[in-house]
């Protein structure tokens, strides 16, 4: 690579003199990024610009129903000094963590079994079944759980056969929210984990066992480090969207399963954009922190000794 770069830099020009290597190198670099230009334009217009606007709104002043371009920290002060917003944020974080843990706890064994024990012939139909729920709208899928989990729902009838009644927290409470979120995000985790496990060389596990490792140790020291990027990706794909959820808590959470997204929704419902933007920025900040923390886990180089 270096040799060819030098060759380029020192290449003779038409009159025999050296070509200006800097311009050639810059042009070459620019042409590499040209293909990225449409994506950059889309990103800039539909993501970066709205994010900038949201951040600006969070530092502007709300006056009744209007927002004024007067810079202030008051919105942040108000949010951090009001206990309910901090409490709801913390509650959202642990509910999200719980839902993410539950999702991975169910998705990992499924993906492991699918990758290791199911023949290729049956893998595709089973994966197809995992994504079939996406054919139904999100709203319908969540609403269906209000029927299943309700007092007169299918679950109540099933428990009734055994003389049991449905606990009050089956619906309109936090466990219901965590349960439904786990159901909704299972496909994301399952597909991501399967993709990671499918590439794993299972013979390494057998080799580890042959060398005296227990099954658990083999999984922990041989397999998990290699699929760590896949697990991290699955965590990101599940944790981040759940953090901003508001529809599922509204439909199945009742008054106890409220998440921070619901409070943002309340702000925007009454055109209180400054405060809503402030909380949205804080949620985005948590996401960025998460991605920075997990960034190292996504690097594959050290796994292969590079």
């Amino acid at each position: 690579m270096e040799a060819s770069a030098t060759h380029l830099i020192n290449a003779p020009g038409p009159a025999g003199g050296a070509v200006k290597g800097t311009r050639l190198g810059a042009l070459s670099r620019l042409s590499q990024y040209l293909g990225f230009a449409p994506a950059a334009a889309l990103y800039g217009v539909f993501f970066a610009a709205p994010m900038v606007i949201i951040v600006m709104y969070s530092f502007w002043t709300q006056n009744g129903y209007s927002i004024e371009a007067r810079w202030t920290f008051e919105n942040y002060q108000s949010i951090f000094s009001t206990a309910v917003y901090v409490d709801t944020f913390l509650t959202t974080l642990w509910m999200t963590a719980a839902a993410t843990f539950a999702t991975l706890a169910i998705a990992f064994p499924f993906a492991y079994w699918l990758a290791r024990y199911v023949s290729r012939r049956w893998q595709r139909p089973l994966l197809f079944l995992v994504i079939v729920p996406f054919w139904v709208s999100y709203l319908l899928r969540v609403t269906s759980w209000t029927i299943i989990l309700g007092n007169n729902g299918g679950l109540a009838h099933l428990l009734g056969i055994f003389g049991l009644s449905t606990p009050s927290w089956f619906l309109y409470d936090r466990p219901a929210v965590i349960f439904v979120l786990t159901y909704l995000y299972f496909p994301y985790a399952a597909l991501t984990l399967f993709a990671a496990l499918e590439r794993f060389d299972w013979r390494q596990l057998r080799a580890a066992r042959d060398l005296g490792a227990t099954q658990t140790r083999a999984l922990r020291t041989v397999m998990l480090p290699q699929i760590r990027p896949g697990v991290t990706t699955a965590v990101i794909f599940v944790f981040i969207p759940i953090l901003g959820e508001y529809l599922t808590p509204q439909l199945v959470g009742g008054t106890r399963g409220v998440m921070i997204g619901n409070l943002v929704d309340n702000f925007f419902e009454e055109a209180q954009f400054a405060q809503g933007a402030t909380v949205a920025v804080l949620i985005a900040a948590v996401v960025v922190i998460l991605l920075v923390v997990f960034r190292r886990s996504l690097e594959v180089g050290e796994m292969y000794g590079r």
Partner: protein
Amino acid sequence: MDRNMITRRDALRAGAVGVGALAMAGRVGTAAAASMNTPVTINMLTWNDHYDPTKQLPAIAKETGITVHPTLGSDDGTMFIKAKESHQEFAIVSADALWVPYYYEQKLSVPFDIQSFPVSKQLYSASLDVSFWKSSGGYLAYPRAWSALRIYYNPKYVNPAPTSWEVLLDPKYKGKFVRENQPTDIVAEAGLATGAKDPYNMTAQELSKAQQFLQAAKPAFLDLVSQNTGVVTALANETAWFTSENLGTDIRVKKAGGPLIKAAIPKEGVVGWLDAEMKMIGPYEDRFEQFINAWGQANWIPPLFKEFEEAWFNEAAYKLLVNQGMKDLADAVGYNNPEGALSAHLKGPQKNPGAYIDVFNQVFGA
């Protein structure tokens, strides 16, 4: 020849001028008629119970040349912002009660002579005499419909009948109250429960009392649903026992196969709404009357009433509803009693909307 005599040339000249004038008048009249039916597309910011997209709007387009593109709004606050920031994009905007004069104060809407609208003859006279919809320039909006909220309750479980908002504090009704998620209205009802004079414009002290009431009442809340259908379902399957909802909820629960539900008016009062269509400042002001005359006809109301069960201000439509066998339902929603529209505390913009949301979030946050 005598100078005072009209010559043949004079007569012919006068006749030609006259015919020319008549022809010109006819052409101007035709041009005026043509411009009133010139195809035009206007944007209307409204709610889905204000129009029928399948038959009514196409018929209006055919009759008047006005094609309406409705944009659905959610609540008055965000609709106001949308109307204001869109810079005359919307020719017609729907709004509730005291929001109408607010639009006018903000120089977004235009008053008009409602009595000159032929279709206004079909309205109840009470709807043409709403004091806060009057201005020196005319009426501020064309009245559409109204409702007031009631405490609807299942008498099998809730007895005695509620007479006060304090029923929400009764521990035996824990987790049995369901309501639509309308933060401002819920806080306003809490304000009524604690004696606020103007529940939609409470002072800081009144808001504090309302918050305390709501905090104490929170255990009664089973769920805050996004739509009326959620309330109806909860009452029909008896997951919830009572609610605060629009007139006619008892009929809807019955239609959903639910039990008998009764209505109660708490002694502290209830909130309500009346909505209307406003003529917005913009390039299509001259087509507003034409649209309203077509849109407001009584024959369009029965299908909308059948779907949404709301009391319109159109008296001629009530007669159609009676003829079509919907008298009981119409009476259940108070259709023929438009004066009832003004008996409730009506929705309007708050001076401090952020404070209302803060109160709501502090009670219903995690």
